[in-house]
C-alpha cells in the first residue's frame, strides 16, 4: 500500500499533471479526427516523451491512448467515420441513432462507458499485474522464448485479413529486427556496410513512418472528402443517460469483462475487444429485434470494452515485456529507450514507476469525463479543422521527431522508407501490427532462444523440460498446426460431401 501512496505522490507533481493534461487534449484531438488513429497519436508523442522522466513519459502515452480510443467515437456518431479503428464496430449504429435525434445520448453513453470501462481495466491491472509478476519471476529463458513465440503467432493469426498475410507481415518485421549487431558475437548483420545500422533499425523512426507518414500518403491519395456533420447542435449529453445505462447494465457489464479479458491476450487490441463485445451483446441481447433496429446496447458494451482492453493490455507489456498490440509495443520501446527493462523484476526495481503508470490509467479515465465532455461540445470545431493544413504540419513534426531520437538524418530516411512500405502493405491487405511486433520482439526472440540453447548445450528438448514452458510450447505448436488441421478437416468434409 505504501508503494501505491508513493506512486500517487509521484503522479501528483504539478509538471506530471500538466503533461497528462496536455497529452490528454492531444489524444482527444488526434482520436477525433478521422484518418488520425490512436496509434499515430502515440507514435507522434514518443519523440517528445524522449525528453521526459520515465513516469511522465509513460503517463503521457497512457492518457493520450485512452483519450484517443474514446475520441474515435465522436466522428463515428457525427460523420459515420470511425475516428480510430476500435470504434468501427458500432459506427453504423451510433450514426443511425444520431440521425434519429439521439446524438447527445450516444455521445454521453460513449464517454461514460469509455471512462468506466477504462477505470475497471485500470483497477484490474493494478491488482492482477503484481500477481502475474510474482508468477513470472520463476520463468526462465525457455518460458520467455515460448511466450514471445505465442505472442507473435497469435498476433499474426488474429490480425484482420488472411492468416498468410499476417504471417508474412510478421516475418518481414522479424527480418527488420535482424538488422544490427548479432547479439552473441557482435558481428554486423544485414547492415549493408552502414555504421548507422549497427544499432539496428530505429524503432521510433519505423513507427512514425508506418503510422504517420503512411497515413499522410493515404490522405494525399484519397479522393473522398469528409461528409457533412449529422448534427450541429449538441445539448446536454448526460440528460437521461443514467436510466438508459441501467437498462443496458448487462451489456455494459459484459463489455467491461470482455474488454478486460481481451486486453492481455497477445495480438488482440482494442478494436478486436470492441468487435467481440458487440457481437456478444447482440447474441445475448435483452431484445434482439430492437438491437438490430439500432439501440444503445451494442454501443454501451463495445464502448466499455475497447477502453477496458487498453488498460489491461498493459499486463503482458509491463509484467513480461511482451506487448500484445501496436500501442503497447510502442510503450515497450519507450521503456527500453529510458533504460528500463520491462519484466517481472520491474516491480522490485521500480515499484513507484510501475504503480505510477497504473495509477495514471485511473487518473486518465477520471479525466476523460470532463475532457471528453469538452471535446464533444467542441467537436464541431475539431472536425472542422481542415486536414489539408493538418497533414503538412504533422509531416514536419514527423521529420523532426524521427531526427530527434538519435540526432541523425538516417532516421528520416528510415521513416521515409517505412512510410512507403507501411502504405504499400496496408493497400495490399497486410496487417501492420504483426510487423511492428516482429520489429519490437525479434531481438528478444533470438536472444531468449540462443541463451536457452547455450544453457541446454544444444539440446532442443530442454525447451519442453519445464512444466510451464512445455505447456506454452505445445500451445504454440498447436496454433502453428491449426491452419493445416483446418485444411485437412475441410478436405475431409468436402470428400464426404462428394461421396
Amino acid at each position, binding site marked *: 500500500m505504501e508503494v501505491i501512496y508513493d506512486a500517487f505522490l509521484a503522479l501528483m507533481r504539478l509538471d506530471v499533471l500538466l503533461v497528462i493534461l496536455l497529452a490528454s487534449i492531444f489524444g482527444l484531438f488526434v482520436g477525433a479526427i478521422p484518418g488520425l488513429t490512436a496509434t499515430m497519436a502515440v507514435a507522434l508523442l514518443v519523440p517528445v516523451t524522449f525528453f521526459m522522466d520515465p513516469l511522465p513519459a509513460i503517463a503521457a502515452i497512457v492518457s493520450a491512448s485512452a483519450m484517443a480510443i474514446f475520441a474515435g467515437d465522436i466522428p463515428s456518431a457525427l460523420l459515420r467515420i470511425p475516428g480510430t479503428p476500435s470504434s468501427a464496430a458500432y459506427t453504423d449504429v451510433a450514426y443511425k441513432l444520431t440521425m434519429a435525434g439521439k446524438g447527445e445520448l450516444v455521445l454521453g453513453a460513449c464517454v461514460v462507458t469509455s471512462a468506466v470501462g477504462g477505470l475497471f481495466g485500470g483497477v484490474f491491472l493494478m491488482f492482477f499485474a503484481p500477481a502475474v509478476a510474482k508468477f513470472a519471476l520463476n520463468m526462465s529463458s525457455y518460458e520467455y522464448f515460448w511466450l514471445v513465440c505465442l505472442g507473435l503467432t497469435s498476433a499474426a493469426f488474429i490480425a484482420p485479413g488472411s492468416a498468410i498475410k499476417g504471417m508474412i507481415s510478421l516475418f518481414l518485421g522479424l527480418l527488420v529486427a535482424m538488422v544490427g549487431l548479432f547479439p552473441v558475437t557482435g558481428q554486423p548483420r*544485414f547492415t549493408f556496410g552502414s555504421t548507422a545500422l549497427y544499432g539496428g533499425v530505429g524503432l521510433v523512426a519505423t513507427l512514425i513512418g508506418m503510422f504517420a507518414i503512411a497515413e499522410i*500518403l493515404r490522405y*494525399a491519395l484519397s479522393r473522398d472528402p469528409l461528409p457533412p456533420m449529422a448534427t450541429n447542435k449538441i445539448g446536454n449529453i448526460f440528460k437521461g443517460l443514467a436510466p438508459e445505462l441501467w437498462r443496458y447494465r448487462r451489456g455494459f457489464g459484459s463489455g467491461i469483462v470482455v474488454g478486460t479479458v481481451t486486453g492481455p491476450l497477445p495480438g488482440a487490441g482494442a478494436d478486436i475487444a470492441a468487435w467481440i463485445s458487440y457481437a456478444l451483446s447482440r447474441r445475448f441481447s435483452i431484445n434482439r429485434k430492437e438491437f438490430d433496429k439500432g439501440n444503445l446496447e451494442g454501443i454501451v458494451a463495445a464502448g466499455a470494452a475497447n477502453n477496458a482492453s487498453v488498460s489491461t493490455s498493459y499486463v503482458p507489456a509491463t509484467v513480461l515485456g511482451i506487448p500484445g498490440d501496436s500501442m503497447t509495443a510502442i510503450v515497450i520501446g519507450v521503456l527500453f529507450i529510458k533504460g528500463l527493462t520491462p519484466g517481472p523484476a520491474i516491480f522490485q526495481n521500480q515499484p513507484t514507476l510501475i504503480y505510477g503508470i497504473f495509477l495514471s490509467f485511473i487518473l486518465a479515465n477520471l479525466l476523460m469525463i470532463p475532457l471528453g465532455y469538452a471535446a464533444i461540445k467542441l467537436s464541431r470545431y475539431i472536425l472542422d479543422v481542415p486536414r*489539408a493544413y493538418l*497533414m503538412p*504540419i504533422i509531416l*514536419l513534426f514527423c521529420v*523532426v521527431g524521427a*531526427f530527434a531520437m538519435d540526432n541523425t538524418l538516417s532516421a528520416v530516411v528510415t521513416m521515409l522508407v517505412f512510410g512507403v512500405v507501411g502504405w504499400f502493405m496496408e493497400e495490399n491487405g497486410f496487417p501492420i501490427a504483426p510487423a511492428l511486433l516482429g520489429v519490437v520482439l525479434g531481438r528478444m526472440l533470438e536472444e531468449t532462444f540462443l541463451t536457452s540453447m547455450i544453457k541446454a548445450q544444444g539440446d532442443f528438448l530442454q525447451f519442453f523440460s519445464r512444466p510451464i514452458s512445455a505447456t506454452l510450447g505445445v500451445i504454440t505448436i498447436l496454433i502453428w498446426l491449426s491452419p493445416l488441421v483446418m485444411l485437412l478437416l475441410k478436405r475431409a468434409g468436402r470428400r464426404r460431401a462428394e461421396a
Partner: protein
Amino acid sequence: MKLSDILMGPIIVGIGIVALIAASMQPKPFFGTGYGGGLFPTVVGCGLLLAGALLTLNGWKERASQPLVVIGDWIRSPRHIANAAVVLGALLFYILFSKSLGFILAGFVVIFVTLLQFTRAPVRSLIVAVATTLVVKIGFQDVLLVPLPWGILEPYAGVLTWR
C-alpha cells in the same frame, strides 16, 4: 495500389530468397552452441519462402476473379498523384539538403510546398508554414535542445536562438 496474390507471392518468395542468401553469408560460429547469426534469418527466410509460395498458390486458384493490379481512383487524377509526389519529394529534399540549408530553411520548404499543394492557398500556406516552422524550431531546438542542423544560417545562430 493492390497487387494480386499471383504477383505478390513471388515478390515475397524473392525477399525470402534474398534473406536466405544473406543469412548464408553470415560467419559460421566456431564456439558455443553452433548457432550463429545466420540461424534466425534462415528461419525467417524459409518462412517467407513458404508463405510466399502459399500466397502464389492462392493467387493461381483465384486468377480468374483477381485482377493483376488494382490501382485506386487517384491514378486518374493528376492532382492526387502530385499530392503524393510532393510528400515524398519534400521528404527527399529534406534528406538531401537539410544539412547544407539548415532546418529552418529546409523544414520551411517541406511544410510550405506540401501546404501549397494540399490547399492551393498561397497566403495562408505561407502563414501556417512560417508559424509551424517557428514553433518546431523553438520547441525542439531551443527548449528540448535537439541539435537541428543550422546549415547556411550558422553565422546567425546566436541571433536566432531564443533563450
